[in-house]
């Protein structure tokens, strides 16, 4: 396995710093880098907020319902990302449900263009990876002593305090795991940015494919791969720090 992993790095094996300088000097690469960082962070943030609320609700359900809920949460994970992404085209399109509703209710005069915008990519990624966050949070919440929250409440803590002082510290591992999975997932997703963002909203991963596909440029591909790896390790470290603070 170790050989296999080291091989994985060899494709872009002949990097030099000059390559990096050249890479960063191109405005497109910088735009794509910051866009990827921004969308990745946003997806983690939103899925953590929604994830905590949802996971907390699920953990507090009675066991039978909990199992069913858990099943429903992992259900979207079972559906091919290819198909789920295409569903968003049907939803967000010019004659899709959202636009029909907006125009029908008179909120907007003309259909709004959602496809091939950052909004579409964001929604697609969020839908794709939020279940991972919820599962990770549920998994760590179930090991949380049930009476801790009750104790805190009895001691006069309000819900915000309960969250920051009790739930957050006890679910740190889950948050870090979920955050890392979601962030790296968003970074390395290919189909969603490819279909919903297209070539107008390039992300690092789609840019990487373009480099490999069009110009057989393995140097750039290796650089992008390195950047992606550094970014997700960075995310792991940052999330750990945040969780401890």
């Amino acid at each position, binding site marked *: 396995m170790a050989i296999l992993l080291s091989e994985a790095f060899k494709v872009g094996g002949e990097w030099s710093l000059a390559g990096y300088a050249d890479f960063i000097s191109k405005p497109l690469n910088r735009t794509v880098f910051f866009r990827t960082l921004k969308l990745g962070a946003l997806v983690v943030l939103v899925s953590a907020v929604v994830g905590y609320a949802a996971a907390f609700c699920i953990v507090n359900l009675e066991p039978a319902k*909990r199992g069913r809920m858990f099943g429903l949460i992992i*259900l979207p994970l079972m559906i091919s990302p290819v198909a789920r992404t295409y569903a*968003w085209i049907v939803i967000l399109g010019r004659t899709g449900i959202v636009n029909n509703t907006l125009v029908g209710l008179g909120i907007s005069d003309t259909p709004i263009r959602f496809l091939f915008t950052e909004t579409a990519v964001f929604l697609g990624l969020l839908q794709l990876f939020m279940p991972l966050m919820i599962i990770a949070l549920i998994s760590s919440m179930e090991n949380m002593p049930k009476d801790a929250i009750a104790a805190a409440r009895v001691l006069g803590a309000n819900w915000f305090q309960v969250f920051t002082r009790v739930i957050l510290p006890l679910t740190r591992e889950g948050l870090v795991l979920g955050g890392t999975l979601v962030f790296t997932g968003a970074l390395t997703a290919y189909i969603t940015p490819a279909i919903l963002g297209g070539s107008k909203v390039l992300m690092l991963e789609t840019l990487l494919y373009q480099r490999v596909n069009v110009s057989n440029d393995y140097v750039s591909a290796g650089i992008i791969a390195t950047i992606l790896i550094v970014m997700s390790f960075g995310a792991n470290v940052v999330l750990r720090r945040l969780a401890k603070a």
Partner: protein
Amino acid sequence: MSQTWASRVILSLTLLFLIGPFFIIIFAGLSAGSTLSFPPDGLSLKWYLAVFSVESFRQSFMLSMLLAVFGTLTALLLGVPAAYAICRYKIPGAETIKLIVAAPIIVPGIIVGLALLRYLVVPLNFTVTLALFLAHTALVLPYAVRVVTATLENLRTDIEEAAILLGCTRLQAFTKAVLPNIKSGILAAFILGFVTSFNQVPVSLFLSGPGVRTLPIDMLAYMEITYDPSVAALSALLAFLSIAIVFIAEKTLGFSRYV
């Protein structure tokens, strides 16, 4: 009372966002028209039936199924002891091992796939199926290690210490005291791994040989040729299959006890 109500609203909205698109896919697959659309142009089962007539779908489904099941099982066989070692023995460089094991998640799939093709399939004459199996195992391993580690870290160490005091060997303590307590973590890891493997696209993109192709790759290729709702129908069928898996897991393992 209001708390239950709030909880229902939160869960309903979350589920609407997560599962809504799935219903759209089901209905888009029921369309009587010839393009993917919602609401569908009339209702018909023809696209669902069409799926079964595509021979390559049957082949690629079997391949994806075998890869997902055996890749994930192998990953768990490697991953559970690894996770245990990382958590219980303060081995030097545990953090580094975690990072190395996580690499296949983070290294973009196309690089992994291409590396395998260039360094294993071509010079060493590995079959494409074997390369796919290795790739999928490597892909799933991080999920196995990380999910199981997260569960282990929340498990109190005194359970196994108690077991050892009561005369168990280290191995017995592991199988009798630790394993039953991390079942939910292992199950979660299996489900995550299975799904990741089953839906994997970029790694498998370069690892398809004549007649050997995973299902998602086949779907993508099919979508390039025709743009009819049969891909939606196939996705819906796969989703029904997964509901069945979760349902059976619940009935036989008592899934919810571990959740």
